[in-house]
Structure formats: C-alpha cells, structure tokens
C-alpha cells in the first residue's frame, strides 16, 4: 500500500477500511447463512410441564455431556396453560424446538391434532418399538409417527401410605368398599378423597374405565360412528352415579366444588386428605411440596372386583417442531429422551413407570396393585386421549363442577358431552 497515499488522502483510507470491514462481514454472513458447521455449538429449546416444575436438569446435563455440541434450554410451563401457549407459539412461528405433547386427539397439544407442525419420527432408530401396540393409534397416522411416548403411567387413586398404615386402612376392591372407606376415614377426622371441583375429570373418568371401557374397549370408536351416545350409555350413566355417590357419601372435602388443584395438592402434601384420583404426575407435584410424602396408587375399584380395570396412561410424549431451525439436533434429543434407559429416569422424576417397564410388568412396589391387572390384560388405555371436540377440555371441567354444586344434573351433563363431541 502507498504510505504517502494513506497519509495524504484520508478519504481513501476510509474507503479502504470500509471495504475490508464489509468483506469481513460478507465472509461471516456467508458462513453463518450456511448453518452451523459441524463443530459449532447449537442450542435447542425444550418446553414441558413435567417433573412438578423441577425440570429435567439432571437429564439435560447427561445429554449435554454425551453431545457436547448441543446445548438444551428448558422452559417449564404450568399444565393449565401449556396447551394454549403451545398452540399460540405454533401459530406465531416461535414454538420451541422440542416440546411435550400428549398422545391421541383429546387435548390441545395432542400429537394427532397438531400433526402438521410435527416432524415425522418414523425413521427414528427405535420407531417401530417405541410405541406399545395398545397406544399405536395415539401416535401413528398411517406410516407417520408424530411423537415418542414417555412413561406409561397407571392411573388410579393416589393414597398416602403412612396414613393408611396409621389408621389401619385397606385398599378397597369394590366401589361399595371405597364408599365404606370414605366413611371410615371421615370418622377418623381426615378428608377421604380430595377433589378439585373445577377440575374433577379424573374422579369421573376413572369409574368410567370400569363401567364403560371394561365391557366396551372400543367405545370411543363407536361414538365416532354415532353408534352410541354418552347420555344413552348405561355405563356412562353408572359412572356418573358413582361420581355423585362419592360426593353424597362425604368422600370429598368441604368446599370441594370451588377448590383448585393447588389447594388439593396442598391438602395431600400436608396429610389433611388421604386419597386423590389423579394421574401419577400429581405425585411429583406433591413431593415437590413435601419430599417426605409416601404414596402408592391402586386402580379405581369397579362395581365388582372382576369388573375393575387398570388404566394405562400413555399420554405423555415428546415431539419435534417441524419448523425448527435445528431439526436434526432436536430430533436427536427427543429420541434420546425416549430411549429405554433415559425414559426410566424420566419416569422416576415424574412418579411413574417407563414404557418398557410397564410392558414387561416391572412396576415399583408402590404400583404393585396394578400388577395382577397388567398380567391378566385387564387394562384400559386412558379414555380421554381419543376424545374429540370440546368434551375433555371444556364440557367436563365446568360440567362436573356444576354437578357437584347442583347447577347441572348428571343427565344434562351427559347430554352436553354428546353435543360437545
């Protein structure tokens, strides 16, 4: 470069510096636009409502150690707002790379409902074995797989084992025995079964597993074809009677009608209430409040011992955002999370059992009440997963509260369920 030119012509110097800067920027953009190079670290985002809000930090640390080029940022969202949040983010185009989903069609974040926004995971190494046969239609559509199940919960009545020992209580085998247990616990000065009046769905769907899906496992498919109705079904009417009978027998706490899940969770954690009809992830939330809480779960008893069915909950799953900028890395994380060894750890964090352990009837001692039913194949897949319309999210929560308060009759609610289907 001509030094005298540099000294005598500042404008020329400025032009040279500008040119060099622009060239450097252009090179940087060219490399950047091509995507992350093999050695560049990629950050993926994960949104979920698992582990009682404590997050997947131990699992994420393990993943990042195994894949040092992938960093995972997790965001917890409370379950009640999770689905609307996710839908809004998908619409806006800023959804996370990986997110919690549910199997089936029944909820806002159900994989089949949002399939157009999900990566097809059918080519994943474990795709053919990741989904149990009973849950096949919850995650597969034709030859496309839209989510990988995590954990296989067993839904029933969560109970405080310490209080059961203290008051010498026994797990009921029939519905009438359950009502008797309620009266005994109430006489002992405790709340038999806490229920969140504004979210009492499980307290109604669990009896229905015995009265509706035990005799007719394909009831939902028949309903889709309009061959049956909620209001016209003897099984549904019986489930409604049982729900109302529990309220009448004093199973629920005073003020249950307006109670919310946080209040109920608190009552269970502090030992004010002994039982709770809820999915097993609720144990995680209770243990977050009281790490010394000891729980077990038993299947909701049917009218007879022989009619009792165990509900297997294949709802939790992980899916990958089709519009993610890092589909490859996001898919790697999702597949890793759903692998048998990691799923077992995920299940432990969420108070449930891994998919593989459930299929092989390897249940921890606090879920041993379900073993005979799994071995005898007296199981029902969680019914609401294949509901359609507004039944699960809208009609049932407010409708059951209406039944508890007297604003709605059981028959009227069943009719509303038909309208909402």
């Amino acid at each position: 470069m001509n030094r005298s030119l540099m000294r005598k012509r500042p404008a020329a110097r400025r032009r040279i510096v500008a040119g060099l800067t622009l060239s450097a920027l252009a090179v940087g953009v060219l490399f950047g636009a091509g995507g992350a190079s093999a050695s560049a670290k990629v950050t993926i985002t994960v949104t979920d409502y698992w582990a009682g809000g404590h997050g997947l930090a131990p699992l994420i640390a393990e993943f990042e150690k195994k894949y040092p080029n992938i960093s995972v940022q997790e965001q917890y969202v409370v379950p009640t707002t999770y689905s609307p949040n996710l839908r809004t983010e998908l619409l806006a185009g800023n959804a996370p790379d990986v997110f919690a989903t549910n199997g089936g069609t029944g909820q806002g974040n159900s994989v089949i409902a949002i399939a157009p926004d999900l990566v097809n995971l059918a080519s994943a190494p474990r795709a053919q074995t990741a989904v149990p046969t009973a849950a096949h239609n919850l995650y597969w559509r034709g030859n496309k797989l839209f989510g990988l199940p995590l954990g296989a919960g067993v839904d029933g009545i969560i109970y405080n084992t310490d209080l059961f020992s203290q008051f010498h209580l026994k797990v009921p085998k029939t519905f009438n025995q359950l009502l008797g247990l309620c009266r005994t616990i109430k006489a002992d000065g405790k709340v038999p079964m806490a229920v969140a009046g504004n979210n009492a769905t499980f307290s109604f769907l669990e009896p229905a597993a015995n009265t509706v899906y035990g005799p007719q496992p394909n009831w939902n498919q028949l309903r889709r074809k309009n061959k049956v109705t909620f209001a016209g079904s003897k099984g549904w009417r019986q489930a409604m009677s049982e729900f109302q009978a529990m309220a009448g027998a004093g199973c629920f706490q005073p003020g249950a009608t307006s109670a919310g899940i946080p209040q109920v969770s608190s009552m269970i954690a502090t030992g004010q209430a002994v039982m709770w009809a809820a999915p097993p992830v609720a144990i995680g939330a209770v243990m977050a409040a009281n790490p010394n809480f000891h729980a077990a779960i038993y299947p909701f008893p049917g009218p007879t011992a022989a009619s009792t069915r165990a509900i297997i909950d294949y709802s939790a799953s992980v899916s990958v955002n089709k519009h993610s900028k890092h589909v490859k890395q996001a898919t790697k994380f999702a597949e890793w999370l759903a692998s048998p060894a990691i799923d077992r750890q995920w299940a432990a964090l969420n108070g449930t059992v891994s998919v593989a352990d459930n299929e092989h009837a390897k249940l921890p001692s606090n879920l041993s009440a379900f073993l005979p039913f799994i071995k005898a194949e007296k199981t029902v897949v969680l019914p609401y997963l294949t509901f359609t319309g507004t039944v699960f999210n809208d009609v049932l929560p407010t409708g059951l509260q209406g039944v508890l308060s007297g604003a709605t009759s059981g028959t009227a609610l069943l009719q509303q369920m038909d309208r909402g289907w």
Partner: protein
Amino acid sequence: MILAFHYAAVLSGAWYAFTSWDGVRSPHFVGFSNFREIFQDPVARAALLHSVEITAAFVVISNVIGLALALALHRAVKTRNFLRLAFFAPVVMSPLAVSYIWQFIFQYTGPLNGLLAGIGLGSARNDWLADPTFALWMVLVVLIWQFAGLTMTFYLAGLQGIPDELDEAAAIDGASGWFRLRKLTLPLLAPAMTVSMTFTAILGLRLFDQVIALTGGGPGSTTETLATRVYVDTFVNSRFGYGAALALVLTALVAIVATSQLIVLRQRERRL
C-alpha cells in the same frame, strides 16, 4: 394509513369468523354457520345473557356508589385526599391479582366464612364461588369493589366543574339539600354521568379477568361471559373460527350499547 394499521387486525379477525379453523390446518369458508351456532348453542346464549345481566347491574351500582363517594368526598373533609386515594387504589391494581385475593376470601375455608362463623352466622357459610345462585354476583362484588373508585373519580371531576356559588345561592334561597342535588347538581353532572356510564358499560361487557380467576366460568357455565367463551372456544377448544365469530358478536354488542348510551345520554344533557 393510520386507520389501516388500527383496523387491519380487526378486519382479518372478522374474516376468520366466517371460517372453520383449528389454528393448525388451513381455514375453510363456512359462511354464517358460526353465527347460527352462537345463537343456537345454550352455553353461548347463556354467556350473552350473563354479560348483559352483569353489565346492567355493574353500571347502575358502581355509578350510584361512585356518585355517593364523590359527593361525600367533595366536601371539605380533613382526610378527603387520603380517602380519595384509598378508594381509587384498587382501580390501578391488576384485575387478576385482585381476583385471586378475593377468591381466597370467598373460598369455603376463607375469611368470609370465618367471619360469618365468628359472628354467630355459621349457618350462612357457603361455597360462594361454586354456588350457582351466588357465583355471578360474587364476581359483581369484586368488579364493583375494584371500579367504584373509577366512577368516583369521574364524578369528582364533574363536581369540580360546578361553581360553588350556584349551590350556595340555591341554599340561601331555601332549597333543601335533596332538592339541590336533584335539580342542580345531578343535571350539571350529566356530562360526567355520560362518560362514566359509557365506560362502565364497556368494562362490564368486556368482563374476562375476574371470571377466569374467580370461577373459570363455572359452576356449570353459570358465570360464563362472552369474553370468556371467546377465550375457551379459541384457545382451549382450538375453534379459532368460532371464537372469532364470538369476538365479532361481542364487539358489535359493545359498539351498539356504547353508541346507544352516548346518543341517549347526550340528548338528555342537551335537554337539561
């Protein structure tokens, strides 16, 4: 350009009202079927009725209380500035935060029932927010508690504009306090009343936060309003087209009520 910027979102929302859209797949045009469903669906009709009921009650009661407070605090009372602040403070609080506090007060094991038991009225204890007879009116109580201070402010501003000499002259001429209020103060407060009633009508029709926080629309849809149905149908039930139609009906209702009220009250102002 400003009009386009302001109304573009509204117009695009209005278009979705004529479609069936789940927010995931492409919307498809269904004409007026969403609107027909609104007027045939018992839950949507009930929500419309609740919106109208609560708005009517809220407008009347909050304006009466606001006017009474304004008249009381317009006088030369030593603590009037503090009292004005105390009554206005709830207006600036978050409606959700206020509603969660009241939810605690109203719950079965909450302070209200505790107070009733404490004064010997234990038999009157109730699950206030879960009782279909009382739930909607409990929402009204919270609404009035929070916004009576706002109407008070409107009327205070109106009272500031009335010359004291008029009232003094009438008093000297022997007019009673009640007569002066009816024939002098209230007519001169007509502009403030117009603004206050229109504002409270719009607030009432748009009611959402308080219902969601206090009752979620229950028990059994007895406290649902149009605004809560818009939210539930759009974001919970993923019926974006139907939700847009509900929103359009709500917008039309607010516009009709607000405009009619303005016309009637302005005519009244001119007569006075």
